[in-house]
């Protein structure tokens, strides 16, 4: 449901059904609502059967990359010769994304149930949930839920009498966007600086402490609860667009809409329904200018491009962007695109771990050039220079943070070139615009 707003008729509330309902937060509250049935079912199945069920559902990772979850789980070795680990990515820090926070604070047992299902499927006895340091309230709520789950036998040495041991450790981050990247997260859990690692080896081969590891996003694991409870066929049937995108997706809508919030849509829902109906459209007297549909790391879309765009992995790619994490940033005609692109570049420059030259230097240069343009000191060749820099930052680094900085810059220059040129020709100054 569109928390903090009431559910909209065009939503399909599955994961978000109990957002805003504090009584769903406890073990009893969750159990009364059908909670832990999915886990009980999973424990009655073999590892392989759980993996097959999730594969059949078509579930894809909700953290950004959209990798098929069942397939990812199947990469974990069948023979457990070393400890296996599940890491739950609750580092949510991609600008525009605020969905995992609602799962954590309203339905922590939904997440724990999903984690336990995932652990069973990959043969892990221990789960690390990495919660970003700034989520102080969510950290407390989750820690309390873990304690309750142990008391009620949903975690511990013999989960619900199945003979299966599953432990959860909540690990608190300390402020670093890059730790959301899976290999940086593993380093951070190991007590190191959050530098991403070169792949291969992939985490399923050598992850945490060089043991087989799977990393999943909070929403991915929450979805697994419902797939186990209601079946892969039901989940797969939730599809209005491309059959490769199934189920529901939480879309965090923010920026210049009348009702910012999290809307849970069936994959394939028209983007215009989401922006203009569910989120209430623009403020009075304003028109839509641009949308960044999948968190700040994806290309920007124009108001024309969102027409006829289906909200699923393939639908948004067809329109030149990506579904990403499902963090949608909506900008109306009061927005200064050049300033906001600079602000995003500054974000990436601040968050670069600085291992790769292209990223360390590229994010900083990009920011400085954009600042210079905004200050009225831009040079005619600056746009070409930005595009050249972006080219050097794409596909050449250890992780994709560098590419993520380039994507909004390149797409904004391509689609809103006139705004950059207005600064370059001095016909526009920063004081003339509002946001």
């Amino acid at each position, binding site marked *: 449901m569109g928390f903090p707003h009431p559910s909209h008729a065009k939503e399909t509330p599955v994961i978000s059904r109990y957002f805003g309902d504090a009584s769903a937060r406890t073990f009893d509250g969750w159990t009364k609502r059908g909670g832990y049935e999915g886990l009980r079912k999973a424990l009655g199945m073999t590892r392989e059967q759980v993996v097959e069920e999730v594969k059949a559902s078509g579930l894809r990772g909700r953290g950004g990359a959209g990798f098929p979850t069942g397939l990812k789980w199947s990469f974990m070795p069948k023979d457990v010769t070393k400890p296996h680990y599940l890491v739950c990515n609750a580092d949510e820090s991609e600008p525009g994304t605020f969905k995992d926070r609602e799962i954590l604070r309203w339905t922590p047992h939904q997440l724990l149930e999903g984690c336990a299902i995932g652990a069973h499927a990959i043969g892990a006895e221990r789960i690390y949930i990495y919660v970003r340091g*700034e*989520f102080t309230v969510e950290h407390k709520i989750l820690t309390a839920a873990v304690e309750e789950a142990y008391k009620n036998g949903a975690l511990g040495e013999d989960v619900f009498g199945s003979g299966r041991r599953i432990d959860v450790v909540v690990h608190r981050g300390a402020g*670093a966007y890059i730790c959301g990247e899976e290999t940086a997260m593993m380093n951070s859990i190991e*007590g190191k600086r959050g530098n991403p690692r070169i792949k291969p080896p992939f985490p399923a081969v050598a992850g945490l402490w060089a043991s087989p590891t799977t990393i999943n996003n909070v929403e991915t694991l929450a979805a697994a609860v419902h797939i186990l409870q209601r079946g892969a066929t039901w989940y797969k049937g939730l599809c209005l667009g491309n059959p490769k995108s199934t189920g529901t997706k939480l879309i965090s809508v*923010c*920026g210049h809409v009348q009702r*910012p919030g999290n809307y849970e849509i069936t994959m394939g829902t028209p983007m215009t329904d989401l922006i203009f109906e569910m989120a209430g459209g623009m403020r009075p007297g304003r028109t839509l200018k641009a949308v960044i549909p999948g968190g*700040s790391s994806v290309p920007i879309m124009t108001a024309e491009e969102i027409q006829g765009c289906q909200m699923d992995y393939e639908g948004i790619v067809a329109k030149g962007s990506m579904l990403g994490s499902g*963090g949608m940033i909506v900008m109306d005609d009061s927005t200064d695109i050049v300033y906001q692109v600079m602000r995003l570049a500054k974000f990436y420059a601040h968050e670069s771990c600085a291992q790769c030259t292209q990223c360390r230097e590229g994010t900083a240069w990009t920011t400085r050039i954009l600042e210079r343009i905004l200050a009225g000191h831009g040079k005619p060749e600056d746009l070409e220079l930005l595009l050249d820099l972006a080219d050097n930052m794409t596909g050449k680094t250890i992780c994709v943070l560098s590419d993520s900085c380039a994507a909004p810059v390149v797409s904004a220059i391509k689609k809103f070139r006139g705004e950059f040129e207005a600064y370059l020709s001095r016909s526009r100054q920063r004081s003339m615009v509002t946001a």
Partner: protein
Amino acid sequence: MSATDIAYRPVFVGDGKAKLEALFPKYPTRMSCLLPALWLVQEARGWISEPAIAEVAGVLELTPAYVKGVVTFYTMYHTHPVGRHFIQVCTTSPCNICGAEDVVKAFLQHTGCGELGNTSPDGRFTIIEVECLGACGFATPVLINDDFIEGVTPERVAGILQGYK
């Protein structure tokens, strides 16, 4: 030896030691306890000083240089003292287009901090801008110590500050 060395009180004694030891079974290596141990130091002392770094290094069998390298990677660990109330305002694009920079200005004005990163003359406040707090639909979110406050506008700032003496 500086004054801080002489005045340094170890964190990992008594209750603090028990909290540290409770971490050990959660991780297969001592090094992995570093982030939670640093949180324990910051909770107890408000910031992470050089002698604290040495103490952490000692209990986790690491070198002080290694610990310092980790401390400085993460933005939430303070390497110098901050005001009694530490205020973090998100100004990343989604909040920025909703007026976050005016919220920062209001905080600077009402606290007397003058500049970002400075502590107010009465030692009450330090303000910084932070990147996305993961609550973009509730612009502008502000973190004051451990209190997460949603939907802050310039008009609300004076009232909010009254709760922090």
